[in-house]
C-alpha cells in the first residue's frame, strides 16, 4: 500500500480550525488570568466564536468536500454552523456571571463549551458515519462535565452522572448501528450507504433501527426522553440552556443528513417509525409539562415537545421539498426563544435557600419588573406558537410541510398538543400578571439583559417579518455529494 498524501482542502473546515486553535490559545492565555478574575476568560472566549462566525459567513453558497468527502461544506452545514456559533455566543454571555458563582469561577467551563461547539459544527458537516460518531462524542463529553460543573450541588452531580450513563448507553446503540450498516454495506461513507442500503436486507434495517435509537436518545424524544427532565433540572441553568439548544439541533442535523442523503430510498420504512415517535413525543412532552411546578423542569418537558415538532418536519423531509427548510427555520426560532427563556430563568435564580425556580416565584412580576415580565411573556407566547412570534411561524411551516407529505393525522396531533401547551406556558404569564406576590429579584447582570433583549427582538422579527429568514432556511439545502 503506497502512501498517497490526502487532499486536505482545509478551507472547508476553516471555521473549525479557527475555533479549535484559538481555544487552545485561550487555554494558554488563561494561565495569566488571576483566579478571581476568570470572567476575563469568558469575555475572551467570544473572540474564537466571532472569528469562526466570520469565516462561516464567507462559506455561504459554496459547496465543497474535504478529506475524501467525509466532511462536506454546503449551505445546510453553513446555516447550522451559524446557528451553533450564535448559540455559543449567547450561552457565553449568560454564563459569565453565573459560572463565577455556581461554577466557582473555573475557566475550563468556557473551553469545554467551545470544544463542544466544534463537535456540533462537525455534526452538521459529517458525511461519514465515523465522523458523525466522533463529532457526537466531542459534543457530548464536554456537556457531561458541564452539567456536573457545580460540584457542591448534589443535583448537578446527579445530572452529570445520569447524562453520562445514558449518553454512553445511547452511543453504544449508535456504534452498534454503524457497525451493522458497515457490515451490510461495506462502507461508512454516506454516499456509499445510499447506494448499497436498499439491497442490504435485514442487517441494514437493523442497523438503521439502532442508529435511530441512538439519535433519538440524543435529541430526547419519547420513549428515549427519560433522562431529559432530571438532567435539565440538575445542571447549572446556563448549561441547560446551551445543551437544550445546541445538542438538540446538532442531533437533528446529523439525523437529517444521515436519513435524507443516505437512507432516502428507504423512507417508506422509517417514515412510519419517526411519525409515531414524533406523535408520542408531542403528546407526552406537552402533557407531562402540565403538572410541573419547577420552571426548569417545565422547560425541559417543553424542549421534549419541541423535539417532536422538529422531528415532524424531519419525517416529512423526503416527501415535501420544504421539510429541511421548515426544520431549520424552526430550529432558529427555537434557539432564540429557548435561550431567552433560560436567560430569564437565570435572572431570577438564586444560589442558596429558595432557589426561586418555582412557577409561584414569578407571581407579581408584572408589577415588580414590567420589562422582564413582557419579555418573558413574549418568549412564552413564542414557545406556545401564538401569532406574531417566531414560534408561530416556525410551527406554521412545520405543519405545512407535514401536510404536503400527507401526514394529516400527525398535523392534527401537533395542533391539538399545541393547544395543550398553551395551558402551561400561560400559567407562567398568568402568574406574572394576574397574581400579587412578593418578588425578591436579584440585580440582573447586563449580559443577561442583552441576551433577553436579543432573544425578544429576534422572536419578534422572525414572527412579523419571517419571509426573508425563511428563504435563507429554504436555501440551506444539503448536497448528497460523493
Amino acid at each position, binding site marked *: 500500500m*503506497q502512501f498517497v498524501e490526502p487532499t486536505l482542502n482545509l478551507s472547508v473546515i476553516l471555521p473549525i480550525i479557527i475555533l479549535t486553535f484559538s481555544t487552545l490559545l485561550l487555554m494558554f492565555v488563561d494561565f495569566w488570568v488571576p483566579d478571581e478574575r476568570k470572567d476575563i476568560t469568558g469575555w475572551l472566549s467570544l473572540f474564537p466564536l466571532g472569528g469562526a462566525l466570520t469565516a462561516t459567513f464567507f462559506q455561504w453558497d459554496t459547496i465543497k468536500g474535504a478529506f475524501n468527502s*467525509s466532511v462536506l461544506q454546503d449551505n445546510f452545514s453553513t446555516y447550522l454552523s451559524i446557528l451553533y456559533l450564535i448559540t455559543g455566543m449567547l450561552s457565553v454571555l449568560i454564563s459569565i456571571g453565573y459560572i463565577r458563582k455556581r461554577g466557582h469561577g473555573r475557566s475550563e467551563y468556557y473551553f469545554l463549551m467551545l470544544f463542544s461547539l466544534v463537535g456540533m459544527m462537525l455534526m452538521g458537516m459529517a458525511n461519514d458515519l465515523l465522523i458523525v460518531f*466522533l463529532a457526537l462524542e466531542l459534543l457530548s*463529553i464536554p456537556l457531561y462535565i458541564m452539567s456536573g460543573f457545580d*460540584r457542591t450541588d448534589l443535583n448537578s452531580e446527579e445530572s452529570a452522572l445520569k447524562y453520562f450513563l445514558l449518553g454512553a448507553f445511547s452511543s453504544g446503540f449508535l456504534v452498534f448501528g454503524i457497525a451493522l450498516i458497515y457490515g*451490510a*454495506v461495506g462502507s461508512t461513507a454516506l454516499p456509499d450507504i445510499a447506494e448499497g442500503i436498499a*439491497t*442490504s436486507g435485514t442487517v441494514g434495517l437493523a442497523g438503521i433501527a439502532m442508529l435511530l435509537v441512538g439519535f433519538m436518545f440524543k435529541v430526547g424524544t419519547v420513549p428515549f426522553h427519560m433522562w431529559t427532565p432530571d438532567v435539565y433540572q440538575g445542571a447549572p441553568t446556563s448549561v441547560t440552556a446551551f445543551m437544550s439548544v445546541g445538542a438538540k439541533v446538532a442531533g437533528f442535523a446529523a439525523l437529517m443528513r444521515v436519513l435524507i442523503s443516505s437512507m432516502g430510498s428507504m423512507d417508506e420504512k422509517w417514515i412510519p417509525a419517526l411519525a409515531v415517535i414524533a406523535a408520542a413525543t408531542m403528546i407526552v412532552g406537552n402533557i407531562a409539562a402540565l403538572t410541573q411546578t419547577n420552571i426548569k423542569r417545565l422547560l425541559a418537558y417543553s424542549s421534549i415537545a419541541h423535539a417532536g415538532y422538529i422531528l415532524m418536519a424531519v419525517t416529512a423531509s423526503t416527501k415535501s421539498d420544504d421539510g429541511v427548510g421548515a426544520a431549520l427555520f424552526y430550529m432558529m426560532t427555537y434557539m432564540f426563544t429557548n435561550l431567552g427563556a433560560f436567560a430569564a430563568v437565570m435572572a431570577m435564580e438564586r444560589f442558596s435557600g429558595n432557589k426561586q425556580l418555582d412557577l409561584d416565584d414569578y407571581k407579581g412580576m408584572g408589577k415588580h419588573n414590567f420589562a422582564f415580565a413582557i419579555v418573558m411573556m413574549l418568549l412564552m407566547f413564542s414557545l406556545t406558537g401564538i401569532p406574531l412570534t417566531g414560534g408561530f411561524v416556525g410551527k406554521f411551516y412545520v405543519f405545512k410541510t407535514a401536510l404536503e407529505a400527507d401526514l394529516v393525522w400527525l398535523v392534527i396531533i401537533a395542533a391539538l398538543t399545541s393547544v395543550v401547551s398553551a395551558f402551561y406556558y400561560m400559567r407562567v404569564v398568568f402568574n406574572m400578571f394576574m397574581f400579587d406576590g412578593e418578588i425578591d429579584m436579584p440585580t440582573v447582570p447586563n449580559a443577561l439583559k442583552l441576551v433577553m433583549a436579543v432573544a425578544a427582538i429576534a422572536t419578534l422579527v422572525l414572527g412579523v417579518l419571517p419571509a426573508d429568514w425563511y428563504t435563507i432556511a429554504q436555501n440551506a439545502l444539503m448536497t448528497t455529494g460523493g
Partner: protein
Amino acid sequence: MGHPIVFLILATVAVFAAIGMLTSRNAVHSALYLVLNFCTVAVFYLVLNAPFISMVQITVYAGAIVVLFLFVIMLLGADQLPKASSNGGLQYILAIFATAGLATALILQLSGFGDGTAKPESALDASPEAIGTLLFQDYVFPFEITSLILLVAMMSLIVFKAQKRKKQDG
C-alpha cells in the same frame, strides 16, 4: 477463515465466556471471563489474517482495560455484587426476543439465505503498515478529531480532580 472446527470451538468459548461474565455474581470472576472473551476474539482476528488488530486487542482490551477494571473492583472492594434485584420478567423476555430476532437476522443474511449482498472481505491487508497508511491517508481527519476528544477528556478529569482538592483545602 481457518478451519470450521477452529471457529466452532472458539465461538463456543467466546459465547460462554460472555454469558459467564454477565451471570457471575463475583465481579472479579466477571472481569476474568471478560479477559477470556477478549482473548478468543483476538484469536479470531489472528485466524482472519489480521495479526496487528489481534495484538492490539490483547494489549489494549485484555491488558490495559481489564487491569483497570480489576483495579477499580479491588480498590472499591466491590467484588461481591448484591443479589440481583429482578425488575420483572418482562425486561428479560423483551431482551431475549430482541436478541433472538437480531441473531436470526444476522444468521439468515450471513449464511446467504437472506436477500443481502454482504460478503466478508477475505483478501484484506491488515498488516501494521497497511493500517498506518489507512489511518494517515483516508482517516486522518477522524484521527485528529480523536485527539481533540482525548484533550477534552483530560481537561474534564482535571476539572473534577482540582475541584475536589479545593474542597478538601477549604
